[in-house]
């Protein structure tokens, strides 16, 4: 899964929840100099390898070492994927809400990118959760869909995430889109809590006794297998988050780059009749409030 390009590069690390990445830019390398042409880095390669190793361990434990369950026989093995992915689904939603809140407060584009990242990775994990949940339901209760509290709220959560990502994909102007997405993102966690609470209550009334509780009592190798499940999916989650964050970060940079060309074009349009002022080069369009970081022309 990791990018195994040979380009040896100095190790630069970006934690997925990097703060204020849009601050002042450091060195000003010549634009277009050939750097690594992908979102991989030494850190993600290490992370990727670790994730693969953990998945290998999970396969070993989940399918081989851990015993079958007394009642559910081997179908319990699905739990080792289902439960962790449900957990990381909620982690992704939490990151999105947190990032949205911080974007509304601090307006640095890094948070906006993190909000989008959290939601998309959470959506992938929600599909995994729904898939494994229904595949688990089939052998255990004979139906693909069980109106079990957790599964139902996951389905509603998936709809919320799809709505959020749909709003982000509309081509508004960047600032308006980020603001609206941030408000929606901030509401994600409260929505999830209310949905869970109401679905939990709803199902607890109709919980007929025959339903085997989803979490059978687990200990010994089965518990280890579940823990390995959490480890493996956790590493995979982090790896996906880091790469998706960088993709979002690149998308933002790409937006800005065309802008400077547009500025030069706009000036040329003036048919020379109007003297263009001293041509300031790069400027940061993303924080309209604060004074511009690259201000070359000192205000009169």
């Amino acid at each position, binding site marked *: 899964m990791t990018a195994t390009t040979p380009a040896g590069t100095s190790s630069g690390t970006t934690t997925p929840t990097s703060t204020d990445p849009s601050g002042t830019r450091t060195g000003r390398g010549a634009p277009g100099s050939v750097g690594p042409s992908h979102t991989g880095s030494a850190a993600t390669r290490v992370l990727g390898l670790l994730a693969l190793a953990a998945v290998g361990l999970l396969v070993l434990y989940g399918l081989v070492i851990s015993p079958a369950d007394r009642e559910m026989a081997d179908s319990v093995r699905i739990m080792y994927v289902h439960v962790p992915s449900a957990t990381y689904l909620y982690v992704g939603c939490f990151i999105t809400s947190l990032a949205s809140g911080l974007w509304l407060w601090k307006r640095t584009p890094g948070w906006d990118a993190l909000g989008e990242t959290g939601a998309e990775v959470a959506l992938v994990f929600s599909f995994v959760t729904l898939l494994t949940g229904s595949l688990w339901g089939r052998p255990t209760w004979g139906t693909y869909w069980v109106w079990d509290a957790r599964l139902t709220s996951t389905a509603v959560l998936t709809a919320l995430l799809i709505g959020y990502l749909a709003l982000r994909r509309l081509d508004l*102007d960047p600032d308006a889109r980020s603001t609206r997405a941030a408000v929606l993102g901030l509401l994600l966690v409260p929505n999830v809590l209310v949905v869970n609470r109401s679905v939990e209550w709803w199902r607890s009334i109709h919980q007929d006794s025959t339903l085997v509780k989803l979490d059978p009592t687990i200990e010994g190798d089965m518990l280890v297998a579940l823990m390995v499940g959490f480890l493996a999916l956790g590493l995979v989650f982090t790896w996906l988050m880091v790469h998706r964050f960088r993709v979002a970060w690149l998308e933002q940079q790409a937006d800005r780059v065309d802008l400077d060309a547009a500025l030069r074009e*706009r000036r040329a349009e003036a048919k020379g009749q109007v003297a*263009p002022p001293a041509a300031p080069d790069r*400027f940061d369009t993303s924080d309209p409030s604060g004074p511009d970081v690259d201000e070359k022309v000192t205000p009169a």
Partner: protein
Amino acid sequence: MEPAVHLRDAVALLGRFPALAGIDLDVRRGEIVLLRGPNGAGKTTVLRVCAGLVPVVRGVATVLGHDLRRDVRPVRRRVGLLGHATGLFDDLTVADNVTFWGRAYRAGDADIAAALDLVGLSTRLRDVPVARLSAGQRRRTSLACLLARRPELWLLDEPHAGLDHDARDLLDGLARQAVDQGATVVMSSHELERAEALADRVVELDGGMAGQTLHEVPHVA
């Protein structure tokens, strides 16, 4: 008395398009300035920037003494924008519209009634839903909304468009009257001969940048 509008190398964006690419513009208090220039030169954007509706991402932008880059809210309370869009509710009557917007701008009922009289809508058309009005009458209604709040800075975006002859005289008269009471007017227009008659100064605009002042209209004492 600081200038009504002071823009120095101001850049403003519409989405990703730099509508204003470093504009310099100064308007003194009590002046009527006409912005002239081809379509897409940024005339409307200048007016919307002065109204605090479009953020300035670079350069200096001060209106009525307030720095737009720090906080636009104080400016918004003191300007009146008359644009292509009338901002009226089609289902409501003329009186309802002007009353709502008047109150929204904290204008007193007296000012609202006076505004309706000034634009000649206080009698026959008063209770006609805006949907059934002609374009010119709609513009008079939104002009009434502007009058009701007695702004210090009038920002008129092609105000003469769609107005009949006496409506234009009415507008020019009201603008002149407001200036005499200390207001300032910045407007853009394509009816050049009429607009230049009204304006004290004409500024050529192109490519989102302001050029030199074309000519000072000798101020008829």
